[in-house]
């Protein structure tokens, strides 16, 4: 194990990610797909074959930087991803109060608390989680069903309740609930199509979900920002953050619970986990919510990848491994970590990457705030929209490493999927229902597939 080389790779992954993930909708799964494709095309010129851990430390650095840095495009440029979408509302509140920088740094502090949690709870991953997995593994389908049911049942009417008759009041108040249920059903249906008969090239693998998420969350947000013509007030870059150790605890607890749920349960994102954990701990303060979402994102993205490094001998019977999240699945073909030493190495990488990313978060937030202050917000949203469209269109070409007729056709198909997803993603924005309903796009197909009903439903829908 060449330690100096590994540190260089970890730092390189972190710094590269820290700057690239300011670009709206650029996800680490997509960037990693491009880098892996480039590595294969160049005969492993990027990651030496004799040192396979270089790829792991590089990508772990990238995952950490993404988890901390994607607050910037989500909050300042109005292009959230599937996990950050919940940060946007309270984040917008801070922006409207001129405290966007503070909100950004609060999520960053949350991220550091998430990293501390992963470190402290390592014994839990070693001794308890593998056993817990053995107990609840066969029940994951109904646990996901429980989450789906709660997501639907816990949305309450938002109408003003005005009307001449009770029925008029009822109909008015239920407008957002119907929209929520409609969004959920449409998203689930879209999910079944994507999982069973996708239009994107099969080799894109997990990247195939990019146009769906970009449409549901990022493009819909950008269109809303362009239409709303909202003006962003001057932002104050504060020298201190309004936080104390009580708030740290209150924000960390729900974030850790939500992040752990998301890291372990397939189809559950950091946003959904954070939402449920927020309800569990009944917290109301916006600072707690913003910070807890920062914790949740790190525990979700980083924790999911970290689980891959829990040595196999901790599992019941000395066999087993937890592959959670696209990164672990993408890299599992290259190398399978075995030793405890590798776990601690990757934990060290997380600490290093967390420190670098936090410092760069402050830097990036400052220059993006300056940018937002100088250029009208609508113009920024237009530029972000063009960047996102380009990203989606070129993704098949980037992942396969070639610009051909086939990859360009794939790009057009990606844009078509994105357009449909955008329409679904706009429903909750215009009808004021929860945007988490869009997550039915993955959670419903995964839940029903786990229960064994997926093939019958796909057949019923004419998708198989």
């Amino acid at each position, binding site marked *: 194990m060449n330690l100096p080389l590994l540190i260089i790779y970890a730092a390189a992954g972190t710094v590269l990610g820290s700057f690239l993930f300011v670009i709206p909708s650029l996800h680490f799964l997509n960037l990693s797909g491009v880098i892996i494709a480039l590595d294969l095309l160049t005969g492993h010129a990027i990651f030496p074959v004799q040192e396979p851990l270089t790829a792991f430390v590089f990508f772990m650095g990238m995952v950490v930087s993404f988890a901390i840095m994607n607050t910037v495009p989500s909050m300042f440029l109005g292009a959230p991803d599937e996990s950050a979408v919940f940060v946007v*509302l309270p984040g917008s509140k801070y922006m409207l109060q001129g405290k966007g920088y503070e909100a950004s740094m609060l999520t960053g502090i949350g991220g550091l608390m998430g990293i501390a949690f992963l470190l402290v709870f390592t014994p839990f991953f070693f001794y308890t989680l593998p056993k817990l997995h053995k107990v609840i593994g066969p029940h994951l389908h*109904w646990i996901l069903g429980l989450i789906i*049911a709660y997501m639907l*049942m816990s949305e309450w*009417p938002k109408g*003003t*309740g005005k009307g001449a008759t009770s029925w008029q*009041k009822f109909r008015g108040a239920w407008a957002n609930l119907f929209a929520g249920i409609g969004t959920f059903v449409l998203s689930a249906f879209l999910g079944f199509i994507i999982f069973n008969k996708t239009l994107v090239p099969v080799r894109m693998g997990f990247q195939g979900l990019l146009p769906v998420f970009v449409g549901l969350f990022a493009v819909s947000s950008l269109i809303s920002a362009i239409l709303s013509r909202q003006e962003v007030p001057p932002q104050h870059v504060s020298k201190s953050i309004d936080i104390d150790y009580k708030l740290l605890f209150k924000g960390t607890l729900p974030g850790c619970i939500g992040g752990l749920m998301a890291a372990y349960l397939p189809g559950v994102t950091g946003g959904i986990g954070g939402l449920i954990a927020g309800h569990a701990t*009944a*917290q109301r303060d916006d600072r707690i919510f913003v910070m807890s979402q920062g914790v949740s994102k790190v525990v979700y993205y980083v924790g999911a990848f970290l689980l891959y490094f829990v040595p196999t001998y901790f599992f019941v019977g000395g066999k087993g491994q937890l592959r959670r999240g696209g990164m672990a699945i993408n890299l599992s073909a290259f190398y399978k970590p075995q030793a405890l030493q590798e776990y601690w190495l990757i934990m060290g990488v997380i600490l290093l990457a967390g420190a670098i990313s936090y410092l760069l978060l402050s830097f990036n937030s400052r220059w993006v705030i300056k940018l937002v202050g100088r250029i009208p917000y609508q113009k920024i949203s237009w530029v972000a929209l063009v960047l996102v469209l380009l990203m989606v269109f070129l993704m098949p070409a980037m992942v396969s490493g070639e610009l051909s007729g086939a990859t360009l056709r794939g790009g057009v198909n990606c844009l078509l999927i994105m357009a449909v997803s955008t329409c679904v993603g706009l429903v909750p924005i215009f009808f004021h229902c929860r945007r988490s309903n869009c997550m039915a796009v993955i959670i419903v197909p995964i839940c029903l597939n786990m229960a064994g009903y997926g093939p019958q439903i796909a057949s019923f829908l004419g998708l198989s």
Partner: protein
Amino acid sequence: MKGLTHFLSGAAVASFFPEAVRMSGRDVSSSFILVLGGLFGIMPDTLDFKVGQFFSKADYDVETDPNRPDPQKMAEGIGKAMDEAFETGRCVKVQLYPIRMGADLWRQYVIKFDGEKNEVVVVINQIVTTSQVPYLGTEPKENRLGRYRIKGKMLETHGRPSVVDIMSGPQFGFRKTAAGEVEVEFLPWHRTWSHSYLLGLFLSVPVWLLASLIAGWSIGWLYGLIAFLGFSVHLTEDLTGHMGGSLFWPLQKTRSNGLSWFKASNPHANFSVDYTAAVIIVYNLNRFAAEPVFTTNPFGFFLYSWFIPMLAYFAITKIFGRKGKDVKKGLVEAEKAIQQEELAYEETEMATGDAG
């Protein structure tokens, strides 16, 4: 208790049935029967907030002109309804509405039932966005506060003023008690018919019938029983709060008071029950598995998985917990306005020589 707490408690109760756990396993029939416990756990509040509230007909609607809000008229509207309840002895309901100023703008106001002075006080606050962000300096410079002194003695049990801003307004019910006081009921439609064990029993019958038709009569009863227990655990948990419920509606129509152990929104109480429910579910899944993984005795299991973590949680909250109560900003603003008005009144009285 909050919705998630009821929901998890319902699922936890369902997990006590070995057959339900066995059926839920992916290797058996991948049943979603345990979700039913959660669904019926949250059902009473669903019936109230998604259906019942829209059919609770108010005797009076209290509204105001968004461009010229008149707090005095609003206070009088509420106060006269209280007088009517006092004079006629019947329950009088008043519906309040949000003051919408635009697509994303609302005028916030606060209603305070001052039991000491027997007054209804309405304070007009700032304009807020749908995200409840206030626009500083938008509170009215004059005519900001209205008061009405009611005829009878006021009995206020809700404990805090109500802030109305976005989306919907509360309903208040005023009822004359046996002692001759006018009791203020916050959300009189809540925890009445929907929070009845008898209704739970009634609703579980179609579940039993439907499940029996689909899965067979030999197992359909379990679905019905889980639905009933999920519903019942909600009502039982709600008794720990202030409001209670009409537990045997339609036989008992009045809403009894709860044990007042803690507020429904208490984060520590909610988290404790949520965590306990999660631990119970894991315990039961392990206990009823074909090959249990955790082989320690129940005492050891709950000591390590429940008692020690809860002890750590409460120790941390005790050390780091916030002292005092969290108060909404809108309420602070309203209290300031009330104090300023009272101060101005006293100064005027002193200037005219009437003080004391």
